């Protein structure tokens, strides 16, 4: 064990003036333990989507940080998120992945909870407890706050956390791109059946920073572009619109959310795609037209990989997915990936997109495979006593972000770097780690809600 391993977080590990981040924050076990308390117990986390639980009694077992939670719809139709652990002796009350139920009954001693979380069944309540157990007090632990944002379900354990939309700040429009229909109508997304879950031997922040908008690692995906899996059947792995748009890094300071983002020139439509599948090509063309009609100038915004702090990744365009990076140990992450389609899209379109999603993403995805190799061995090679002495470099494009960015009449909020000339920047990672350090340092939300006028000192 390295000497430093005995110490947890201290300021200076994230040093953005120098453009450096210490390897300790990825490999140190004490820091990992502190993250569970300071980040995962306080931040808003993605739990699932309402299309996974359409009917009363439906549930989907999810995860928040290290902990198992149940996303369920009670008999009255209300959505809840509960800790998946019996109040009596802690046994998981649900070990199925999904289903429909009237109660969650603990297999250990038989305590049973309604889908609204209330303790309803206690064996020998009269005889052994003399009817004196306060059942109201011993229901399933429920999250402090839950928010249904256009069908996506988010939750936090911290009652003092700001509401979810305030937590998002100006990042709202990027999550909208994920959840609204491609035709511009609100909240049209549905989740395809089958959530991919897999283990990667790396710290959770490797995928988090990658999806924050790592434009620099394109080179590691060269093999998939040579093999040609693009949405039109061959060629580069993603969409043609990247060639005609301004390519931006957009970071929402104060919030720790950031993304890559394309802005089409005024009056220009994206180049045609899916040319080998006329039904899909026609659907996309129709959607673009509708979107321009409904959204006007805003329809020029095209989504790309992004990250909502701390561990939710967006990819609103192609493949259209959301992922959550669940911490399992300092050295292991459980990745969960949800895939989306417009619920009103023709069946052929859904199937075509699905084929593309599978060959792109996840452990069998020809693109994502190479990412996981990098995260795995970057982590492994950073654990040693010597390796830990040398910080990573995050200096790319330091000091070049602008606010009030505008392109042909469209204003983009946040700190922006136009990558069209510079090719790449590490502004998104700086934004992510600055926020990470703030979470590690601030004792409560009064100091974390910096946009309300609180102090901002971490890492500066």
């Amino acid at each position, binding site marked *: 064990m390295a000497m430093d391993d005995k110490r947890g977080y201290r300021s200076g590990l994230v040093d953005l003036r120098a453009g450096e981040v210490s390897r300790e924050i990825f490999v140190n076990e004490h820091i990992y333990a502190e993250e569970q308390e300071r980040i995962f117990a306080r931040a808003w986390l993605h739990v699932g989507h309402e299309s996974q639980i359409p009917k009363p009694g439906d549930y989907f077992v999810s995860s928040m940080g290290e902990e198992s939670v149940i996303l369920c719809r009670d008999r009255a139709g209300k959505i809840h998120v509960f800790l998946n652990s019996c109040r009596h002796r802690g046994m998981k009350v649900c070990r199925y992945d999904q289903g429909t*139920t*009237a*109660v969650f*009954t603990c*297999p250990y001693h*038989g305590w*049973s909870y309604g889908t609204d979380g209330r303790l*309803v*069944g206690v*064996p*020998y309540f009269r005889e052994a407890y003399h009817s004196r157990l306060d059942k109201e007090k011993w229901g399933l632990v429920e999250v402090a706050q839950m928010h249904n944002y256009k069908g996506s379900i988010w939750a936090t354990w911290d009652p003092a956390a700001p509401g979810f939309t305030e937590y998002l700040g100006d990042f709202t429009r990027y999550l909208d791109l994920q959840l609204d229909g491609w035709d511009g109508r609100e909240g049209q997304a549905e989740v395809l059946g089958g959530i991919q879950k897999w283990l990667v031997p790396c710290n959770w922040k490797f995928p988090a920073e990658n999806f924050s908008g790592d434009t620099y690692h394109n080179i590691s995906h060269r093999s998939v572009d040579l093999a040609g899996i693009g949405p039109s059947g061959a060629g580069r792995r993603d969409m043609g619109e990247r060639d005609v748009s301004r390519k931006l890094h957009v970071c929402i300071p104060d919030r720790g959310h950031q993304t890559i983002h394309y802005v089409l020139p005024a009056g220009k439509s994206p180049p045609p795609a899916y040319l080998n599948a006329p039904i899909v090509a026609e659907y996309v063309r129709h959607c673009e037209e509708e979107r321009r009609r409904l959204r006007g100038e805003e329809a020029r915004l095209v989504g790309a990989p992004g990250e909502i702090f701390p561990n939710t990744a967006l990819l609103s365009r192609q493949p259209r997915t959301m992922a959550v990076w669940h911490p399992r140990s300092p050295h292991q992450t459980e990745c969960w990936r949800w895939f989306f389609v417009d619920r009103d899209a023709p069946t052929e379109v859904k199937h075509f997109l699905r084929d593309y999603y599978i060959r792109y993403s996840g452990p069998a995805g020809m693109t994502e495979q190479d990412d996981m190799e990098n995260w795995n061995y970057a982590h492994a090679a950073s654990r040693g006593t010597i390796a830990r002495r040398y910080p990573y470099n995050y200096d790319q494009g330091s000091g070049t972000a602008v606010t009030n960015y505008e392109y042909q009449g469209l204003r983009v909020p946040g700190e922006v770097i136009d990558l069209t000339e510079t090719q790449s920047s590490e502004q998104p990672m700086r934004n992510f780690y600055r926020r990470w350090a703030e979470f590690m340092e601030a004792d409560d939300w009064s100091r974390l809600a910096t946009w309300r006028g609180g102090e901002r000192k971490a890492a500066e």
Partner: protein
Amino acid sequence: MSAINVRDLAPGTSIVLADGAEAEIVTNPGDGMWLFARYLSSPRDPTLVGQEEMIFAPDVVALGR
């Protein structure tokens, strides 16, 4: 007498409980531990008759007629 697996008992089935009461299954959550049942008779506490309660599996000693 062998134990009864309550997991798959259909609503409408009548059951005999350890204290001699008889009840009819209203809904079965299928967890193998609990049944929602309405009392048909209850020698120990006649006020329970007509009431719906959760019945714990080990209390079900026989199937009624």
